């Protein structure tokens, strides 16, 4: 199969799964108790209110018709208007995506840069003190909920040391004096484009604790998977052969084994992104980070159904896309797959 047809097949699968995702959201909201009407107008509405809401949400039409129009609109990126901001959901999303991207992307780079070496060190020194230490810390770390990691960091670095700001993306003085104009939505980059060092460092300082929270809470996962993969490779026969031939151990570990491990590790990046998306919902909530996660939580608590569906679909779609890229990369790197 050529790469082209592979990509084509994967894209088709992506569309099907995305349609499935939207279908699940649609039917859960229609079939299970707690209808969107209740969501929209709240407790004990009058009969007229219910009718008006039904027409506005298109609920007066038959279920298949509703489903089709929902699907078609969603495919065009039209999730309706947010009930709480009154603006098209997709605009709200566009405005906040940069904040989430900045947070998750930075954390992802960090967690891979730290987690992969830790896992490799752990695997190479199996059952030795270094391995036992890394494993102990990651077992303990995996038992901490994301919000506790965030709270502990806030207590330590803001409460005790006063090093980093507690919440938000920029100090309010900078945010409201009109000198700062977001372009890409990534404040760290925007401030550099604007050439304002003070804004840059302010944005960076705000980024530290949320990024640390997200990184630390995903680190155990990445470390453990890397360790398992590397250990599997270390048990391969060609590794034993290399050892038997008297090749230097460090050369075998870091030249042969690590290379063979890095290829399947590409897939870990996709998985990590998924965990980041779940974590970012909690992290943005704790740090008042004005991204998609915080928007999602607020939309849910305000029963803002269109916004909830919109954000969920967009986040799920981004996860699918990242994983598609990861698979293609994997395909391109692994010669065994290239020729099939």
């Amino acid at each position, binding site marked *: 199969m050529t790469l082209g047809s592979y990509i084509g097949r994967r894209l088709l699968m992506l569309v099907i799964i995305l349609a499935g*995702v939207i279908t699940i959201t649609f039917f859960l909201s229609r079939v299970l108790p707690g209808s969107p009407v209740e969501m929209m107008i709240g407790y004990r509405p009058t009969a007229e209110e219910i009718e008006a809401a039904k027409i506005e949400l298109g609920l007066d039409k038959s279920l298949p018709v509703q489903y089709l129009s929902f699907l078609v609109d969603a495919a065009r990126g039209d999730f309706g208007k947010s009930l709480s901001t009154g603006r098209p959901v997709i605009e709200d999303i566009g405005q906040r995506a940069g904040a989430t991207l900045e947070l998750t992307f930075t954390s992802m780079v960090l967690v891979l840069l730290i987690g992969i070496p830790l896992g490799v060190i752990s695997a190479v020194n199996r059952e030795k003190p270094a391995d036992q230490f890394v494993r102990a810390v990651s077992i303990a770390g*995996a038992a901490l*909920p994301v919000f506790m990691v965030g709270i502990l960091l*806030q207590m330590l670095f803001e409460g005790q040391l006063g090093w980093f700001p507690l919440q938000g993306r920029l100090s309010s003085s900078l945010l409201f004096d009109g000198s700062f104009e977001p372009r890409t939505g990534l404040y760290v980059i925007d401030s550099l484009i604007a050439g304002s060092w003070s804004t840059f460092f302010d944005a960076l300082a705000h980024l530290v604790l949320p990024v640390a929270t997200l990184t630390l809470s995903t680190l155990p996962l990445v470390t453990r998977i890397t360790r398992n993969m590397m250990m599997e490779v270390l048990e391969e026969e060609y590794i034993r052969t290399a050892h038997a031939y008297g090749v230097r151990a460090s050369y075998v570990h870091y030249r042969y084994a690590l290379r063979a491990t890095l290829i399947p590790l590409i897939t870990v990046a996709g998985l990590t992104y998924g*965990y980041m998306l779940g974590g970012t919902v909690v992290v943005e*909530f704790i740090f008042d980070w004005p991204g998609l996660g915080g928007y999602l939580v607020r939309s849910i608590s305000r029963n803002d159904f269109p916004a909830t569906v919109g954000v969920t679909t967009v986040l799920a779609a981004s996860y699918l896309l990242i994983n598609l890229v990861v698979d293609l990369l994997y395909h391109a790197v692994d010669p065994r797959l290239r020729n099939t």
Partner: protein
Amino acid sequence: MSDMSAHDPAMIQPRGLAAFLRRRPLFAFGIAGLATIVACALFAPFIATHDPVAINFADKLVGPSAEHLFGTDNLGRDIFSRVVYGARTSLLIGAIVTALAIAIGAPLGLLAGYFGGKTDAFMMRGCDVFLAFPPLLLPIAITAAIGTGLLNAMIALAISWFPWYARIMRSSVLRIRSELYVDAARAMGVSHGRVMVRHIVPNAMTPIIVQGSLDFSYTILAAASLSFIGIGAQPPQIEWGLMASQARSLFMDFWWTVTFPGLAIFVTVLSINLIGDGLRDLLDPRGSSTR
């Protein structure tokens, strides 16, 4: 499978277990930790020193002391007693969600693996849709769709978790289906249903149990996170994640309001994970979970 000794019941006889515990102190620690939490849940009224919901403004935000072991919250409620009662909620969440996810997922996986073909393809593609969601985002989305609250959050967690069990069950069944004793049973005219229940299910349960013990703690963590962001447990329910959330504006000045509920989650999840790892080694020495 030639290596049947690993599944020999003699391995888990009392003497074997005692030796196993001595060799694996972390497993023993997990057992002790979980036993403490379970005791808290079972005997909460006897262990708690105060009424967990009694409001007492005269004693609000008092630090840990002999009277209030873990201090009090902003309504003067005794945090120690609330943490003790919270064990009930969290263990119940873990048990119900895991059981529900297995109850939905395992039969689907069994049917898919046993009958194969179109049934299999259809069910597994369905599972793929669920698995295509980023973890934690699916339960959040489902809770959003069916309404917030602890019960709905539990349903949401089970719905987002069952496909994993379907997959695990399916892969076990695929392996077992081709065993000679299954062929023998079929050749003797035993019905499909009976073959599945009597011959396949008992041999396919080990990976499910191991995964279940690991997911039990994941479920508690996820539920605590849902409660923390306000879409899981609601007041006046007593849940550790919710307690941490209620302490959100307080913890900078009153550290005990968030530390003890957080510690309770930590100890519970850590204990269960240590037990899960130990169980995996005990029941399935060769297998390693990929999740």
